[in-house]
């Protein structure tokens, strides 16, 4: 894979395995065993997150499943692949290029969903009965819960 970070050894594996020939390439302060991770990580967890090869499939799956009325999956997608979203298209490593469309579309989808929801909820709260008439009381959640006896289980 071609993800590279500037100033990092070419061979992404060289840093971790102690090899005498590469001793000169690593900063001496780090010792022979733990150079900084050279690859760019697609997920917000960095080396603890998904490896790059699985990232694209994951992003796509979450994007598609988000259409099943699960917009929070889009939000998770955006949060999880935040580095992909943040790095500008011109400078991001090549591996991000396949992930980026899904993440960007997830972000757009979640933004649209949240705007619609917040608009509706705010209208409902602020408008109140003046706007909706007696129907407001039928829609507000605590009345619905009382009517249907939903909260009776816990009292």
């Amino acid at each position, binding site marked *: 894979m071609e993800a590279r970070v500037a100033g990092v050894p070419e061979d992404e594996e060289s840093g971790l395995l102690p090899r005498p020939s590469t001793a000169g390439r690593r900063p001496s302060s780090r010792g022979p065993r733990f150079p900084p*991770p050279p690859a760019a990580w697609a997920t917000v967890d960095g*080396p603890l997150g998904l490896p790059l090869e699985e990232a694209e499939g*994951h992003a796509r799956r979450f994007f598609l499943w988000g259409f099943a009325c699960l917009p929070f999956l889009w*939000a998770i997608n955006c949060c999880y692949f935040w580095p992909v979203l943040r790095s500008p298209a011109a400078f991001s490593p090549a591996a991000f290029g396949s992930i980026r469309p899904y993440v960007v579309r997830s972000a757009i989808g979640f933004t649209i969903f949240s705007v619609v*929801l917040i608009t509706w*909820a705010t209208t409902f709260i602020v408008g109140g009965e003046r706007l909706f008439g007696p129907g407001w009381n039928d829609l*507000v*959640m605590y009345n619905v819960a009382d009517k249907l006896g939903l909260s009776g289980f816990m009292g």
Partner: protein
Amino acid sequence: MADAAPAVPGDPPARATVLDSLGEDITRIVYPVSACMLLVVLLVSLLSSPDSPSPLTASIAAATGGGGGGGDNIPTALITALTFVVTVTAATFLLALLFYLRCTPCLRAYLGFSALAVLLVLGGQVALLLLTRLRLPLDAVSFALLLPNAAGALALAALAPASVPIALHQAALVAIAVLTAFWFTLLPEWTTWALLVAMAVYDLAAVLLPGGPLRVLLELAIERNEEIPALVYEARPVDPRHGRNWRLWREGRQPGGDLDASSTTVEVIEEVLGRHLDANSGNGSSPQFREAATSAGDVNNSRPQATLAAALSSSDFTQAEVVPALQEHRVAVAEMRVPLIQPRPERSGEEEEDEDGIGLSSSGAIKLGLGDFIFYSVLVGRAAMYDYMTVYACYLAIIAGLGITLLLLAFFRKALPALPVSIALGVVFYVLTRTLLEEFVVQCSTNLLMF
């Protein structure tokens, strides 16, 4: 490392000591426990009203024939607690049987179902209670849209830690624990205390006795080198040697195979300490906790898999509403193979589960079963129903108990239950606070001596 601190002879300044990371390890497990307890206390304070007993209390009272005080007397409490413990034991044996028969899909399905049920049903109830009590004018459409969404996303985060940010996964586990703990605080008072004590005793027996269900399950998992699916909170690992948090999440460690089969929970502390000691001893060939490149042929984790099956953390009361037994299944940890570590042998997903115990994961982070979160929070929540003084006392007692358990873990190096010490201390402190401290503080206050 050219700079050597002149004041420290012979101690390379870049080398981390045990304290550097052990403190952070412990902090990373104390934070979520504290957050869980805080949330439960908040919910209890907001939602419980002593004058209206919850329907749960009423149904238990009715079902047990109603003794004095509406079912909140000691015999009823003992009977209920005993029933609960028996149910949990039976369910754990059932879990062990299923695991023995290798029905992992049904275990996973059960885990998914219970997590989703807790989040949807209990979460919905709590949300409705909050809306009703606080009179928040949320409309039904938004609620119907948000609740299943949030429940589904959190359930996914709890069950598939590989697909979501670690923070979200941990938050989902804490959310499940908070909801279950809140549900438990709705029980009548004596029942709650009896239940806590019974569960502490059960935990002690199940983990330490040779015939205990958790031990059986654990040994099964170890000898098969498999993982038991369960819900376990795993703290984000801290890497002392690197001096930063770059860590190979759930990297299989290939420890020296001298850990015996039953050491699930304590392994962690031991390995952490061992790791620190090794790192400190300055040997070039530090134990291969990370690389594990040495044992190339040792694909599976030679380290005994601490997998205590998730015992049920909630049982179904025969009288009260049946709650789906909340099995903690540790989701098989998808191996997080870091692409940089190509030559490393691939580890099979290892999992350590420690349902009611405490331990360390392969990456050196501390793991604590969700059952412990739940019962700690139940204790503190029940203390909150009396007064905040008892909350503070019980919180300190529980954290102290947790610290003691970790210490014992390091000494004994075998699977240890996390409930008994903390619950014992918590109950003792609750009783002492309520009888002695409160009297003292009230007297001091009324005499304007101390506020």
